[in-house]
């Protein structure tokens, strides 16, 4: 067990956003977190990294290999961020800085967390770009995000997340902002990296089609609570909770396998 979230509660401005969430992530497994917008799935992901909006109050536990993250001092937490737990955001057009080169954004936290030299960091960055299948990695290192397509940008964002060999990857709607045609490629990449590197992946998505394509486990959230958890095949074929059934029924057709 890599990451264990227990009874996580979050209130923002007196409003209950999360009301006791339990989740566990295992190495080499993709855990899908489904639910409609406002159900609290993105907040769960942000809470792990301590990136909740200003004025949020958090209780409960988030343990990374037995170490409690919620009570870590800021400096220690910064080492966990990017170093042990990394995140991929929804829209690569806005989550990469438009005025910094791809190489800069790939190497700066490597050098900070891992203490690599310029050349070492560069070699590793190019290797990462190859790993996420960016054509012409050497060339791409020097370019800016706006010179890439959306799908390529998300691959770069994934490379950035993987740069410091994290144990946990939180992917918040990683394909929602992409063209349908490139979604499958990015998902296959995520799945492959998860298997190859033994990552524990939390895949936050509202898209049950995405979920069925890559997730090992599936949790369904509603109103700040996890209403159902289990292996993908069971949850998607024989849902226990009525809400999961409504979600499945709202899909256009039986595109769930």
């Amino acid at each position: 067990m890599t990451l264990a979230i227990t009874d996580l509660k979050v209130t923002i401005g007196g409003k209950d956003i999360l009301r006791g969430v339990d989740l566990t992530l295992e190495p080499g497994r993709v855990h899908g977190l489904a639910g409609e917008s406002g159900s609290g799935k993105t907040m769960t992901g942000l809470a792990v990294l301590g990136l909740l909006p200003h004025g949020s109050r958090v209780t409960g536990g988030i343990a990374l290999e037995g170490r409690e993250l919620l009570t870590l001092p800021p400096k220690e937490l910064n080492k966990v961020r990017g170093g042990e737990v990394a995140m991929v955001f929804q829209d690569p057009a806005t989550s990469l800085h438009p005025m910094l080169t791809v190489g800069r954004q790939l190497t700066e936290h490597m050098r900070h967390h891992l203490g690599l030299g310029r050349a070492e960091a560069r070699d590793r960055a190019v290797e990462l770009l190859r790993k996420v299948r960016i054509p012409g990695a050497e060339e791409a290192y020097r370019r800016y995000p706006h010179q890439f397509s959306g799908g390529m940008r998300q691959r770069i964002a994934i490379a950035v997340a993987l740069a410091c060999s994290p144990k946990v990857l939180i992917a918040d709607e990683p394909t929602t902002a992409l063209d349908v045609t490139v979604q499958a490629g990015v998902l296959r990449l995520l799945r492959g990296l998860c298997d190859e590197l033994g990552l524990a992946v939390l895949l936050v998505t509202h898209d049950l089609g995405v979920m069925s394509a890559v997730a090992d486990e599936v949790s369904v959230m509603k109103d700040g609570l996890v209403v159902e958890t289990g292996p993908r095949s069971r949850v998607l074929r024989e849902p226990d909770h009525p809400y999961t059934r409504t979600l499945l029924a709202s899909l256009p057709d039986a595109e769930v396998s």
Partner: protein
Amino acid sequence: MEKGAAVTPPRPRRPALPPLARFLIRRVLMAILLAWGVTLVTFVLTNLVPGDPVAANLGQRAMNDPEIVAQWRAEHGLDKPLWEQYGLYLQGLVQGDLGDSQQSHRPVSQDLAEAVPATLELAGAAILISLVLGVAFGVIAALRRDRLSDHLLRLVSLIGISVPTFWLALVAFYVFFYRLQITPGSGRVDPALGAPPPVTGLHTVDALLAGQWDVFGSAAGHLITPALVLALYTIGLLTRFTRSAVLEVLGQDYVRAARAKGLPGRVILFRYVLRSALVPVITVAGLAFGSLLSGTVLVEAIFAWPGIGQYAYKSATTLDLPAVMGVGLVVGVVYLVINLIVDVLYGVIDPRVRLR
């Protein structure tokens, strides 16, 4: 800038020049075109106005003598048709001749050569002060949003943009020179020391170049009060603008992504937040420089600073048309250069402008 996109030449198949150079050349060509436009405007403006330069320059008695009036007009080329006057003016302009001032009886270019560096020194010092303080205040206010320091800075910046410059100049003169006697009075440098050997025309820089420390001290002492007075307005402007620019950037996804990468706060602030926030701030700083030039007219009067503001005032009130046109041209060109600098900085900072 919008126009820049419209006149972009079709891209050659193999670019002979690096993108930044092509970007620069395009901007410079546009600036030259606009400079010509500025001469046309100044000319039309100074000739459309109903005021009569003859009356302003000759006494009432001389005005009653048609012969003197006619002679004066002929002397200054005012008897020719307008288009011919403009042609002659342009012809002279190409050779660096801006005509003679009717007041000082010297070539306008010579007058301007003395006045422009004085004002550039003043306005340059003021814009430096306002950039440093304005950006710093704006960043602090944004980072401490809705706390006491934010409210205080907001109040101070609002006062900054609300103070009448001419009044503030007078108050500063009274308090620091007359009462406290901690600043030298008017002028650019202590007359006993004399101006440093001219290189750039900026007394502080020239004194440093010549190694004259006492002159530098005197020049800097004379500069600091008017520059601060002039800067207050732009400090307020830049504080307000930087604050909102930084707040906007702080809400961007890439800042959250940078925090998710575990980068230290100062790296995020300087590399991620300021880089983006400074792009709009540069535009405002360019505009602010314009308002500084406006302010010089009022500040120079109080501190007896022999700059373009005073010269403009004197030539406008006496309808000294060649001098007014000279001022218009110089000020217009300064504006164009500032815009050019802003455009180039845009290209340097933002790769999306530089590389398509």
